[in-house]
């Protein structure tokens, strides 16, 4: 039981912090932002930045050495994720958290050899093709179909809410290959080259300002070799890989940044001794500390070889609920100036707090969301009956 970073961990943290500080200069913040993109970095910048992460050895940190991994514990990965979030750096997403871990767990040797080195170098962006208009929380309801044809599968269907689809080299796709009932059966996983003929991408503006995508597959051919895991058994891949995504989502850098931003504002306004504000910031700081500990607790369990499952969902819930507390409290603290947006006279922090208040809405429903996550905790964590 040790709540302090070790000397090594501290050094690593300082190294990551120095790397990010050096990369994300004032000039970069001025020139590389793009409100059309999720995360608000220009897509070319995100791709280039991910290559830098690869070159610095930050991508394969936790992989086995056989695949070029650094064999570093989850604590290091959490430190890295915390720093990335705190600095609001681009590139730490499913392309380097979810897909390579899912490949390691479920891919063939050939698939690992084909993709892992390129992922480790930060060369690949992935679009995870799960959600559809009628398959959100109820993911097993998906309708996209993959029909065997010679040594290929032929994929037809529509995917929604498709982050990074417009900049992805590959799609990690869930499609129906088998019966519709029971719904969880008959789903298979594929790796699809986004340059394949028959793929069309539409843009949809979100209320957060950036553009999201829908992807249409029209008789897109996928070679057998790019089937991941067994046919009709894709659901177990999806379920087995959920934790890879959750662990990355639980990083506590966002709330640390949100807290520091409000503290900076209060200090600038000479309001650090305002009793009512102090009471509120005391509450928020306590919640932020709780979220941070949750995240490192999960990392510690992994470091001990345990396999936290619903615990990781709980950590994500805790982090995201805390972030939403900060979103609302931030607006309240800005008072009359809260609604002002980027570029407006009077906007504090260039309108970021209001922008995040919109952006973070997806915390409440995406990747399980607050309600479904509570179902998961109740069922898997407490064993309550369905």
């Amino acid at each position, binding site marked *: 039981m040790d709540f302090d970073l070790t000397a090594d961990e501290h050094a690593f943290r300082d190294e990551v912090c120095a790397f990010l500080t050096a990369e994300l200069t004032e000039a970069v913040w001025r020139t590389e932002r793009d409100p059309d993109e999720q995360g608000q970095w220009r897509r070319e910048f995100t791709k280039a930045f991910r290559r830098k992460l690869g070159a610095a050895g930050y991508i394969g940190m936790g992989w086995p050495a056989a695949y070029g991994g650094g064999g570093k514990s989850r604590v290091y990965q959490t430190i890295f994720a915390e720093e990335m979030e705190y600095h609001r750096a681009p590139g730490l997403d499913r392309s380097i958290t979810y897909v390579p871990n899912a490949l390691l767990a479920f891919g063939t040797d050939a698939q690992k050899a084909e993709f892992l080195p390129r992922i480790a170098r930060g060369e690949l962006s992935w679009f995870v093709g799960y*959600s559809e*208009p009628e398959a*959100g*929380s*109820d993911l097993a*309801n998906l309708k996209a179909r993959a029909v065997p044809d010679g040594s290929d599968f032929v994929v037809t269907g529509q995917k*929604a*809410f498709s982050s990074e689809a417009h900049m992805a080299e590959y799609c990690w796709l869930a499609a129906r290959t088998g019966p519709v009932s029971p719904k969880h059966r008959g789903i298979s996983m594929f790796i699809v080259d986004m340059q394949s003929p028959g793929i069309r991408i539409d843009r*949809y*503006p*979100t*209320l*957060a300002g950036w553009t*999201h995508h829908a992807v249409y597959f029209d008789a897109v051919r996928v070679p057998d070799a790019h089937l991941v895991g067994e046919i009709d058994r894709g659901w177990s891949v999806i379920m087995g890989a959920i934790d890879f995504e959750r662990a990355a989502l639980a990083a506590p850098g966002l709330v640390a940044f949100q807290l520091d931003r409000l503290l900076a504002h209060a200090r600038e306004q000479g309001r650090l001794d305002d009793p*009512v504000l102090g009471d509120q910031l005391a509450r928020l700081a306590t919640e932020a500390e709780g979220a941070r500990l949750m995240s490192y607790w999960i990392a510690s369990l992994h470091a001990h070889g345990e396999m936290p499952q619903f615990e990781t969902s709980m950590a994500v819930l805790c982090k995201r609920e805390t972030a*939403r507390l900060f979103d*609302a409290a931030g*607006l*309240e*603290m*800005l*008072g*009359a*100036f*809260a*609604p*002002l*947006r*980027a*570029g*407006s*006279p*009077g*906007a504090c922090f260039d*309108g970021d707090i*209001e922008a995040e*208040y*919109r952006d973070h*809405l*997806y915390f*409440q*429903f*995406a990747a399980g*969301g*607050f*309600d479904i996550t*509570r179902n998961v905790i109740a069922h898997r964590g407490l064993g309550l009956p369905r």
Partner: protein
Amino acid sequence: MDITLTKEADSLRSTALAFAQHALTHDRIRALEGSDGGFEPDVWRDMATMGWSGCVFPLEMGGAGLGLFELALIVEACGQAALPSPMFASVVEAGMLLLESGVERHRAAWVPRIAAGDAILTTAVFEPGNAELETVATTATPLPGGYRIDGTKTFVRDAATARAIVTLARCPDSPDGLALLLVPSGLRGVRRQRLSSSGGEALWEVAFDGVSVPATALVTEPGQALAALDRLLARGACLKAAELVGIGQAALDLTVAYAKTRVQFERPLGSFQAVQHHCATMYRDLRVCRLLMWEAAARLAAGQPAQREVAMAKAKTSDAIPALTRTAHQIHGAIAYYRDYPLELYYTRAVAAAAAYGNATYHRRALAHLLAHDLDTFRGDIHHGLPVRPR
């Protein structure tokens, strides 16, 4: 005691809502958000024709002779429809200020035109970095036969369409040190810059750079500005609470309708108990908000003291309605995260209305101030007299 709408009021509300909900498409509302005017002139003309711009003004000034309570119902309906109009700037702010506190000259000149929808006026009260009115930095320096105005105002509604701006300034001529001056918006030295802001209002920063106005620009009798301002702030807060109630109703309606039709896990979304409980809480909170807002509006309309009731209404709506819109999104999920779904109109308007005329923190501070300095008022008209039974 009778906390129900009269038949007339209920009918006014229904009529207003039916019009407001059909006046503009959601696409058109979104398109107007960035425009200089911010509203559709044809719609405003229709609203004037129906008597809404004149609702609160006396018959002899071309108004409908109704009161602030009826105006609140109209503002609520516009909030529920996300319908942009200069109602707030021209009627709630400048028009009622002139009606209640204006010198005869300006009242006679402007109120009938405001009531008819022929002229839009606005007010300039708040200042950058100084939204809580503790100090006013804008000055009205006496000149021979008039004043020179210098300073910068913000959160000025509809400055691009307003003929004139009722502007608050420090003025040594007045016993309370303040003056409200009517400044034609085309005068030399008046410059405006659009604020980019959450929600649908056209808000501006307006700079007055050595703007000369005649002595007749004074809107109120000397020493009356502060009282007029107090009434403006109370009215603004109450009617922003009304707008929030409309916003909350719309968000709840959208959510319930969606929950009834959307199917997930082979069941309607609305059959899940978690969704039901979210919706029930939204409904409960909305009802409390509406009752508090009604009370504040009824007291203001009757000319009764309403510090406590206005602060409660604005504090509660400013907390509860944005929270309600967050829950609405949580229930909707991804579909409402897109701009083409109407829920975002209410999400962003809730933020703007909660921040306008004092947010929840501001009004709770006002209540805490009452608590410390005027316990009877804090406790309200209907109370039993402290101390409680000494046991």
